[in-house]
């Protein structure tokens, strides 16, 4: 089966060891996690994990079911890029003296729609949000011209093209299910 990049979204209770419970499902199948980002979700007390991995659809289906099966996981989904709006953020540290000596930084900032976060005596920190290729292209260009002292890129954050977070529907269903006393 064709391998491609899948984005797995996991909603969980906020308790210790949750990340471990999720990653062991990937580890066991020798699937490499490309990016990972974790934060509180829009619903209070519930955490959201966004994970990307290259694999095939049969495998990702099983992975998501195995994650979903864990007791403290509320819901796990997977999506392809077409179904998502997604973004990454990257920070670049460059040498102030080199910037001053060489010039041309403004062109790069304008070209990539980046912004200056901080200007210090010995370094300047730039920020760019965008797709992986975009942050990577800016890195390549900076590296070749001025040189990059330090570079960091976040994991992917993604949002579905649907109207609202699907977890709220699920939580509502759970409550209804319970009140029916099944």
């Amino acid at each position, binding site marked *: 089966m064709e391998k491609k990049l899948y984005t797995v979204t996991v909603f*969980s*209770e906020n308790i210790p*060891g949750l990340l*471990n*419970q999720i990653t*062991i499902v990937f580890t*066991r199948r020798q699937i490499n996690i490309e990016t990972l980002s974790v934060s509180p979700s829009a619903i209070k007390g519930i955490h959201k994990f966004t994970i990307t991995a290259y694999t095939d659809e*049969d495998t990702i*289906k*099983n992975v998501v*079911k*195995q994650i*979903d*099966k864990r*007791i*403290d*996981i*509320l819901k796990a989904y997977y999506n392809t890029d077409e179904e998502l709006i997604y973004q990454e953020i990257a920070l670049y540290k460059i040498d102030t003296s080199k910037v001053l000596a060489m010039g041309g930084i403004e062109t790069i900032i304008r070209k990539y729609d980046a912004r200056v976060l901080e200007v210090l005596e010995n370094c300047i920190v730039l920020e760019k949000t965008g797709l992986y290729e975009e942050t990577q292209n800016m890195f390549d260009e900076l590296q070749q011209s001025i040189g990059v002292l330090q570079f960091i890129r976040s994991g992917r954050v993604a949002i579905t093209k649907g109207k609202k977070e699907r977890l709220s529907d699920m*939580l509502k269903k*759970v409550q209804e*299910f*319970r009140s029916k006393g*099944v």
Partner: protein
Amino acid sequence: MNISGSKALMEALLNEGVDTIFGYPGGSIIPVFDALYDYMDKFHYVLTRHEQGATHAAQGYARIKGKPGVCIVTSGPGATNTITGIADAMLDSTPLVVITGQVNDTMLGTDAFQETDLIGITLPISKWSYQIRDPKEIAFAVAKAFYIAGSGRPGPVVLDITKNAQSESVDFKPEKCDFIRSYLPNVAIDNDSVDNAAALINNAKKPFAIVGHGVTIGEAETELREFLDKADIPAAWTIMGESAMPTDYRLNKGMVGMHGNIAPNTKTNECDVLIAIGMRFADRVTGNLHNYARQAKVIHLEIDPAEINKNVKSEIAVLGDVKLTLPAITAKLQKQEHKEWIDSFAPCEQKEMNRVISKELYPDGDEALKMGEVVRKISEATGGNAILVTDVGQNQMAALRYFQFKQKRSVVTSGGAGTMGFGIPAAIGAKIAAPDRTVCLFCGDGGFQMTMQELGTIIQENTGVKMILLNNNYLGMVRQQQELFFNKRYSSTPMLNPDFCAVAKAYNIATSHVTKREELSGAIKDMLKDDKPYLLVVEIEENGLVLPMVPPGKGNDDIIV
């Protein structure tokens, strides 16, 4: 009431209806055992001789009782000794609550004496693991643990209790748990899938069912029978599903899988509709998936959504407890007859009878004793009413193939994990769960020696298990594969064994030693004359093979006889 965490734990266990605890004490769990001392009239506490034994005994108990088995052990090595039992229970969907001691919460992460990260170790092999660091958590954590272990697809749960949480005081009020918002074990039955399944079965010419552990767990034996009878569907069982149908039931077509019967394995690849009932298409059942039931439309009745399409893709999945989904489908079935299809099993059955079974059960008088004939003789002597416990290996396959059942919930075996050494402690747990039934354990010389220290538990508890040791002085199942697939290079399989009867005698356990066919009946009679523990050592043929066999990695079309 304001009581210690340890006492709170006792009260919480009572609140869950616990009556039996298997365990082994140690440094980090002493406060709990101190509290247990005051509750000895409320719990039947069983001191095993090793923590692994405690988990397997709790498994044997759980499988027969249909409710969670409980063990209490200490931290560090005590806790890591439970790992095999936890992993085994996870693979075989056995409800287990394993309570382990842990060092003080202030010592966590300092490599303290007998500290291991048990939560970290058990996360991948348990249904839920939770560390209690404050006695205030005991009420809800115990309630949640029992709810999780016993509901949905059952499994093992770990509660790791720090020593301070055991000794500090708490204002305890017992809790009950019947809802966790992130865990929904009972899904509403999907009427569409029930309709579709019924329609498919109604139109089937050659329907075939495979029965798994889910039927026993869901106590759906009657519902299964009604389902099969109405649509006249021949059915086979996985080793975890044995005894869900009586052996002599007309539609019971035997065992599927690597050492299963020829007819059901062959017919799996001939049926038009394959109905999997509470089973998970384990590789030991399917063999090579490329040759497995490719012609069939598969209907999968299963409680665990993660099992759907995991190994075998299903046409229709009916999610839920088979206790509910089976009658829902049955209600929509037309009364059918599939005489021609059912009769088509007979030639395969005849072939197996001629080439395998008759040789195994009725060998020539001067041949060495066969595993199968010993199993069948004991089965007959117990009238098909005994509980069968097995260890793992050839002894297991012979026992499962040739023991016969009249009663449901009568098999305790290690299926998914194939844990050697499972037998003796599991038999102890089974006998404690069903003291009025005869419990027959079959094991080999290898598995027996893995947990034979539990003979100590047997005498301390006077547990009347009937142990049958099929001795060939080999690790027989590995030897069999070496003979068939590794040019008879018997690497590490011959065993120099002790005098097993002398071992039994050292424990003051009645024993006898059978080396000849004519001694067997008398020895079985002696073994079954009372309800006391007994070790029957039977010397069986050294190079016996369990046949038929689907070689590892091969498909059900490649059966060796």
